[in-house]
């Protein structure tokens, strides 16, 4: 009898404890794609993401709070991405944030995340208009959006010509992946085309983009001065190969930051020499401090997620950077809500909205020379609009431009207009200043 009571009491106590116990670790779910047509580009990103999270744990966590993570394979498919989201959002005390790495999945999750109160970081992809935090409270396209990329590219091309006014009469062709991702830059390019008078030719390539002969024959006939490439996965290397096969000079090709990484050019080798791409602040950074640290503390202990040779490559760095932004968001949240405590999705959202990554902080994290300061606010979820151009020389990527900044005068009206349209469609109100304080 006594034993029974004791057992019962212990059980009840245990249940009571677990009911009140706060989760001790931040749960970072990952939605990568390691299979499917976009796997070659998705794998390095995922490895960089996970390696950085492991590094944070090795450094002692976020003010002592460790990170646990779990991967769920999406294969770039929206339905699978949604299923992964539903499965992981409530696990381990609740997901801290999501980074879907796919514009399609981002669109789907933009509808669901606000209801579940989980922030979405879409660093370098997603909806360009989501930089407007007044409408998109839970989306954070940190450090880069497609309109920003297109804007910087046009400015750079103008610079090459000797001034934006010299673009008049020039021909620019956009070869894009026929999907919401590929169509993103079009509104901004059309806006700039009106402003400066250059001829914009739009050539869509049906997914997955392995058949581009007709596209490049058209380019050969049209003879554009520049070709912008907005592809993903195997479409990128195919484009460069077809450019070589039709004799279009690779020096005149400029890819977006998702079309300018090692998997896209390694295969083509010498044939890709001279191909340029815009970078989302970072390029291939094998010499950076964070890479050295990861090699020492993560790969050195045999815990590396992928092969050692991959560490420091372009997409690897992007994954690491995306992870870093998430972690710093949690850290910023801890500054307000309690250092060393577990942060909920809502609190992390505040943290991401009040990110203030100064150069000193970035250098301390190991990103010296890789990134510029990022500072977000209630209305601005982008944080930074600087980019650079890098070029493939046959063996590696080298930076071939200074830091360039997107022109807010052009971007802001477009962003506001599209965000307002979204708000009207969804019957949302713009956030009030009072709301910004929470």
């Amino acid at each position, binding site marked *: 009898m006594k034993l029974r009571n004791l057992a019962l009491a212990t059980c009840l106590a245990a249940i009571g404890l677990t009911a009140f116990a706060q989760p001790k670790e931040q749960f970072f779910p990952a939605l990568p794609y390691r*299979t*499917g047509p976009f*796997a*070659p580009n998705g794998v390095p990103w995922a490895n960089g993401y996970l390696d950085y999270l492991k590094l944070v744990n090795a450094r002692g966590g976020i003010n002592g709070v460790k990170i646990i993570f779990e991967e769920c394979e999406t294969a770039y498919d929206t339905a699978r991405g949604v299923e992964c989201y539903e499965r992981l959002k409530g696990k381990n005390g609740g997901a801290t944030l999501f980074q879907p790495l796919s514009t399609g999945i981002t669109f789907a999750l933009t509808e669901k995340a606000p209801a579940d109160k989980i922030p979405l970081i879409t660093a370098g992809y997603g909806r360009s208009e989501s930089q407007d935090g007044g409408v998109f409270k839970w989306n954070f396209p940190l450090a880069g959006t497609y309109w920003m990329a297109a804007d910087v590219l046009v400015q750079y091309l103008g610079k090459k010509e000797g001034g934006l006014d010299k673009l008049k009469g020039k021909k620019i062709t956009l070869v894009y992946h026929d999907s919401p991702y590929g169509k993103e830059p079009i509104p901004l390019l059309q806006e700039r085309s009106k402003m400066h008078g250059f001829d914009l030719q739009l050539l869509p*390539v049906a997914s997955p983009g392995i058949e581009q002969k007709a596209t490049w024959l058209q380019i050969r006939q049209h003879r554009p001065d520049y070709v912008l490439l907005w592809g993903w996965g195997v479409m990128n*290397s195919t484009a460069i*190969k077809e450019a070589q096969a039709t004799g279009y000079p690779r020096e005149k090709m400029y890819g977006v930051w998702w079309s300018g990484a090692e998997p896209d050019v390694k295969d083509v080798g010498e044939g890709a020499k001279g191909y340029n791409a815009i970078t989302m602040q970072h390029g291939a950074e094998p010499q950076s401090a964070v890479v050295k640290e990861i090699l020492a503390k993560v790969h050195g202990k045999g815990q590396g997620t992928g092969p050692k040779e991959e560490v420091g490559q372009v997409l690897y760095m992007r994954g690491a950077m995306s992870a870093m932004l998430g972690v710093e968001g949690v850290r910023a949240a801890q500054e307000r809500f309690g250092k060393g405590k577990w942060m909920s999705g809502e609190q992390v959202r505040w943290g991401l909205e009040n990110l203030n990554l100064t150069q000193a902080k970035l250098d301390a994290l190991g990103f010296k020379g890789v990134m510029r300061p990022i500072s977000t606010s209630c209305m601005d979820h982008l944080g930074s609009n600087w980019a650079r151009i890098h070029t493939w020389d046959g063996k590696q990527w080298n930076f071939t431009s200074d830091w360039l900044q997107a022109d807010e005068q052009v971007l802001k009206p477009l962003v506001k207009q599209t965000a307002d349209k979204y708000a009207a469609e969804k019957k949302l109100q713009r956030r009030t200043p009072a709301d910004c304080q929470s």
Partner: protein
Amino acid sequence: MGFFLETVLGGLMAGMLYSLVALGFVLIFKASGVFNFAQGAMVLFAALAMARFTEWFAHWTGIENLFLVGLAAVIASGALMFVMAWLIERLVLRQLVNQEGATLLMATLGIAYFIDGLGQTIFGSDIYKIDIGMPKEPVMAFENVFPGGILVSKEDLIAAAIAAALVLLLTLFFQKTSTGRALRAVADDHQAAQSIGIPLNRIWVIVWCVAGVVALVAGVIWGSKLGVQFSLATVAMRALPVVILGGLTSVPGAIIGGLIIGVGEKVSEVYLGPYVGGGIEIWFAYVLALLFLLVRPQGLFGEKIIDRV
């Protein structure tokens, strides 16, 4: 005018490449009445095997000579395709003899998923390179006649030549050898062939092996052009209109169909595309094949469908 010729030439080359894949479909359907949806997966698997074996052989044995390593890889991949063909026939087709078309179609789709998963597990899902020494730079022909010349891709020309040679070999095989005759007999009437002593199972294994070799050639050529990765399997979807336009049971039909579809695709994309925003290649090929079918429901060179009531 020059540009039109360029487009047509490009289309013809692309068409030859499609017909390489279509040949695999036709061979298997001709001999066993099975529409092999797994052909795309077989092309991918063969290409992956070729790419990775080249890498691994060079790595293990340290031989630098590209030709030797490539040859070894081809032989190894061919052997692998033979094994796969034998396994498919043994484990799947033999059990599904005499089932209706839809069931067999689904079985081959199941095999396609299986091969997709297996290939990526064994060989990986990165982009791999196949280097068989194909020239990558284009050549300009007729520069004096047309301004700028007509672009001719040397790689495509060589690929087309290989495809033509393969068709010639296959035709000779079917017409001149006894196995070829047996294959044609089986294609004509399974039961009659069986009754005169032709071993059906062995014939089917042979057909799938030949289709495997065709898949290997197609995989190597496409892989050399595009790089070997999962999306290579989608090339089979591009080859389907070729198959139905030419007729499911005709080898010359696969070639002629390929040429028509190739030219149709490219010309429509370049000349019609700009008016409707572009990207019409894929469905135009299917609609073109469909239009031909409306006139000849069995395809250009296919056997007339006879219904016995």
